C-alpha cells in the first residue's frame, strides 16, 4: 500500500501558490530525494507531507490520515521532521529537549542518551540548544529521529551544515531506516550521495515534473 498519496494538491500562502497541483504516490520502505531549483517548492512539499500545511485544493492521505481534515494532527504525531531551523526549546539542553519529547510521546526514555552519544553530542549534553553550532543543532535533530523511529522521515536538506562524519552518519541512518521498513523523503541540492539508493522526485514551478 502507498504510504502517502497526493492528488492535485494546491497549497497557497495568501494568494501565492506554493504548490501548484501536486500528484504523488510514495511507497513504503523506500527513500526519495526531492530536487529542483531554489524556491521551487521543496520545503513546501515536505511541510505538506508533515501535516504542517493544509491543502487549499485537492486531496491527499499520509499514513492513512486525511490531509484535508483535522487528522493532520495525527500526521504530525507520526512523522519525523528535520527542518532548517530545528524545533527545539532554545533554553533547554539537548538532553532535556529529547527527554521531554520522548516522555510526551511515550517513547523509550533509555534511548535518549545513546542517541545523543551516537550523533556526537556527547560533549554538549548540558549546553542550551541556542548555543549549539549550526551542525550540532542538525545533529540534535538526528538524535531525535533515532529516538522517535518514525514511519515516515521528512528531511529538509539534511546534509547541509553537516561535516563529513555527520554526512556518513546521516546516510547510514537513512539506509537503516528504509531497511527496517520506513520511508524517507529528503530534499537536497547536492547530488545524492552514492551510498544512499533513492528515487528522484524532480520539481519545477510548484509541481512534480518527474519521479524515477
Amino acid at each position, binding site marked *: 500500500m502507498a504510504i502517502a498519496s497526493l492528488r492535485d494538491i494546491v497549497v497557497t500562502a495568501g494568494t*501565492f*501558490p506554493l504548490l501548484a497541483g501536486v500528484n504523488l504516490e510514495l511507497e513504503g520502505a523506500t527513500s526519495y530525494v526531492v530536487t529542483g*531549483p531554489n*524556491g*521551487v517548492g521543496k520545503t513546501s512539499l515536505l511541510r505538506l507531507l508533515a501535516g504542517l500545511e493544509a491543502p487549499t485544493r485537492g486531496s491527499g492521505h499520509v499514513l492513512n490520515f486525511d490531509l484535508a481534515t483535522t487528522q493532520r494532527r495525527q500526521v504530525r504525531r507520526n512523522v519525523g521532521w528535520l527542518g532548517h531551523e530545528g524545533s527545539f526549546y532554545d533554553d533547554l539542553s539537548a538532553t532535556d529537549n529529547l527527554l521531554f519529547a520522548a516522555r510526551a510521546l511515550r517513547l523509550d526514555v533509555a534511548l535518549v542518551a545513546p542517541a545523543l552519544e551516537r550523533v556526537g553530542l556527547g560533549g554538549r549534553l548540558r549546553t542550551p540548544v541556542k548555543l549549539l553550532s549550526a551542525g550540532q543543532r542538525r545533529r540534535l535533530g538526528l538524535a531525535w529521529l533515532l529516538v522517535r523511529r518514525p514511519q515516515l522521515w521528512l528531511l529538509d536538506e539534511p546534509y547541509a551544515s553537516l561535516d563529513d562524519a555527520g554526512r556518513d552518519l546521516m546516510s547510514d541512518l537513512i539506509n537503516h531506516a528504509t531497511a527496517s521498513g520506513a520511508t524517507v523523503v529528503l530534499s537536497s541540492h547536492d547530488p545524492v550521495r552514492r551510498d544512499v539508493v533513492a528515487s528522484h522526485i524532480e520539481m519545477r514551478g510548484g509541481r512534480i515534473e518527474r519521479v524515477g
Partner: protein
Amino acid sequence: MKKLTALILGPVALVTTLITLWMGYFVTPADKVQGELARLVYIHPAQAWVALYLSFGTATLASALYLWPRTRSVTADRIAAAAVEVSTVFIALTLITGSIWGRPTWGVWWVWDARLTSTAVLGVLMLGYLALRRANDDPLLRARRSAVFAILTAINVPIVHFSVVWWKTLHQGATVFTDNRHLKIHGSMAWTLLLSFIALSLDFAWLVRARYRVGSVSAANESADLEAALEARRTEAGA
C-alpha cells in the same frame, strides 16, 4: 425568493430609515425636559440594540457554525467578519449619540456608568477581533483564530456585563440619569421608536449583506487570480 430579498432589502431599509427620521423630526413632539435632544431616542436605543445584540449575536452564531466541523464553511467566516465590522460602526455610533445625549444632563461626555463602560469594553473587543483578522493573512488560520476569539468574546459578554453592573451599584447610590431615561412614551412616539428598531435592523442586514458580497466578490477574484497565479507559478523557471 433569495433574489427578491436581495433586490428589495436595500430600498426597504432605506425607506424605513427615512420614514423613521421624518417621524422623529417632524411628527413627534420635542420633550419638555430635554427638548430637541430627546429625539435621539429614535436612534440611539436602536443602534445599541443592533450593535450589542443583533450583530454580536450574528457574529457569535456564525463563528460557532464555523468551528463546528459539520457546518464549517467560508460563508460562516465571512458573515462573522462582516457582522463584526458593521457592529464596530454601530458601537461607535452608540457611543457618539449617547455622549451627545448625555452631555447636557451630566455636564461631561462620559460617566463611568455600567452600561457605558461595558459598551466601551465590548467595543475594544471588536477592535481586537478586527486587529486579529488583519494580523493573519493565511485564510484558514485567520478563520480559525478569529472564530475562537469570537467565542471567547461571547462568554465574556455576560461576565463583563455583570462585573460592570455590580461594580457600579456597589459604590454609587443615586444614578444621575435614571430619571432622565424615563421618557414618557405614547402615541406617535411609541410607533416611531418601534419603527427605528426595525429600520436599523434592516440597515444592519443590508450592510452585512453588502459587506459579505464585497467579501465574496474579492474572494471570487482571488480564485480567478489563483488560476492565473497557478499558471504563472507552473511556468516559473525557479530562482
